[in-house]
């Protein structure tokens, strides 16, 4: 399964895969670079613009990696949500 896999079955999307790890890493890198990049760019420091650009690219890559998986998982879960909500109501009652 490629890192930019677009076709996920609901069962595949429910499993934890390397895509989740890659999305988390890219997400953290993106946050760090955007946070310091915007501050430095506002002061017209060259490294700020570079950091900001790389941060945005990391964010886009993160989206490309994780979005197809999230879509497949969400679609499958939405179908089962009502049944699950009824289960939750029963499970959390302290009176039977």
């Amino acid at each position: 399964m490629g890192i930019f896999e677009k076709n996920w079955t609901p069962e595949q999307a429910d499993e934890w895969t390397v895509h989740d790890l890659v999305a988390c890493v890219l997400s953290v890198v993106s946050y760090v670079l955007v946070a310091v990049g915007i501050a430095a760019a506002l002061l017209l420091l060259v490294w700020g613009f570079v950091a900001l650009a790389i941060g945005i690219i990391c964010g886009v890559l993160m989206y490309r990696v994780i979005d197809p998986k999230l879509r497949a998982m969400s679609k499958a879960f939405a179908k089962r949500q009502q049944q699950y909500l009824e289960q939750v109501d029963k499970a959390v009652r302290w009176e039977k």
Partner: protein
Amino acid sequence: MSEHILSVIKFSGLDWFWAVALIVVMVACGIIFYRLGKRSESEFFLAGRGLPWWLPATSIFATHTATDTPMWITGVIYKYGMRGIWFPFYCAWCAVSAFVSTKIFRRSLAMSQAEWQNLRYSGLGAELLRGWLAGWQTFMNMFVLAWVSAAMGKVCTYLFGWPHWLGLVSFTGMCAFYVLAAGYWGVIMSDFQQGVIAFLGITIICGWNIHEAGGPTAIVAKLAASGQSWRLNPFYFDKDFPLAQFLTLFVMATVGGIGMGNFIDWYPEAQRIQSAKTIRDASYSIWAGALMTLLRNGLWVAAILAFFVMFPNIADQKEYEMGWFRLGFEYLPMGMIGIFFAVILAIHLSTIATHLNLGALYATRDLYHHYINPQASESRLVQVARFNTFLMLIGCFVLGLSMRRITEWLIFALWLQAAGIWIPSILQVIWWRFNSWAYLSAWVANLIMSWLVVLVLPGLGVLPKLPDYQQFWLLALMVGVVYLPVTFLTKPDDMEHLVRYYVMARPLGFWGPVRREAIKRGLIKAA
């Protein structure tokens, strides 16, 4: 600085127009969404679980931009320079949470973190945990309300010379109108407008601040000329801000995103996660909300460095913490001061609205509905929700007006929550064997050991006064000595209960025996 500055700067008619217009629009939210809010408990607290990602995202940003936030961030940037950005970086837990704990929590469908305890754990331990978290969160939300309202009281004293109680009561009271009327619908819709207003306002004002300091190039040049170029380096480490402190803040923020309940911010975020339409919407709402918060921090960093260049020799922390307010009220032109005040009102109202509704959620769903009246009708639950919102407001006023002396004790209470249960809050997500007794013991041990490490032992001279980040790791270790033996000396949670939770929430980590049991029962397919 003058005691209150309106003796120097007057509000024009246009300034008052902006402030009044904001209040009118917010109160209108309560009227417009009144009918939606009263339909059920789920509508009053989660807007029916049907929101697109951008609504909870702006709400996250708006909620975490409170009246005291610019004071705190100004304080750390003025003192540490750009590296001070790592103190508020803890919101980056959302970078990881968006794709880990957010997904798991959204799938659990728990209305609150306290209810999640009932889904994750079983038996008496789960009930004790739910009761404890519900009570703690009801109180904590009341405390945050009081704290933020007290900050507004200070701002109004500074601006208008109002008595402290008037600033504290007036705007919080106005906010309660739309929260009482429309519940979470009122919160989320007004948060959206407040979030947009706050972000645009902060951007404009920070731009103006940089301009007033002579522009970006002049700020950099002045810092270099005074030998302060290190203030432009976010990775500059010395004895005041050692590498170990940065690493602690970074690890806390990022790895913490795997857990649930290890940050005070988790609780409002949990409500937003459940109010999102799908798992995908929940993930993006958390991710985008935190990104907006980080962008805001970046804007403030540049503006506060501008303030430092203009006023480099302020030694009194209380004075330099007001730097951003000072730049806004003393340097913005007539007509824009009202926009600045509207921004302050927006960030105040959004935080107040969130915590009024969130405190009422724990009091209604986890205390009243769960323990007192499990058979309550939806209309009864909405009535109780409104009553609890009102109680939160009254509690906020009482606490806020009496808290000047107790603030430091309550900040300590926040710290208690952060340190010792940081690892257990991760373990409860990733390890099936970690049970309710282990999590409870971690809470109790943390309460006791925090007192010992932070106050008692340094007071007796047994332990030196350690920096915060060393206290954090010491507490993590000491509390671990308690909950790890408790985990292995008590029985695991009921397998039936764990399988049900696993199939629904699909947690990551060490869930082998539970997963095998779910596969054996045909509830999930083997990979």
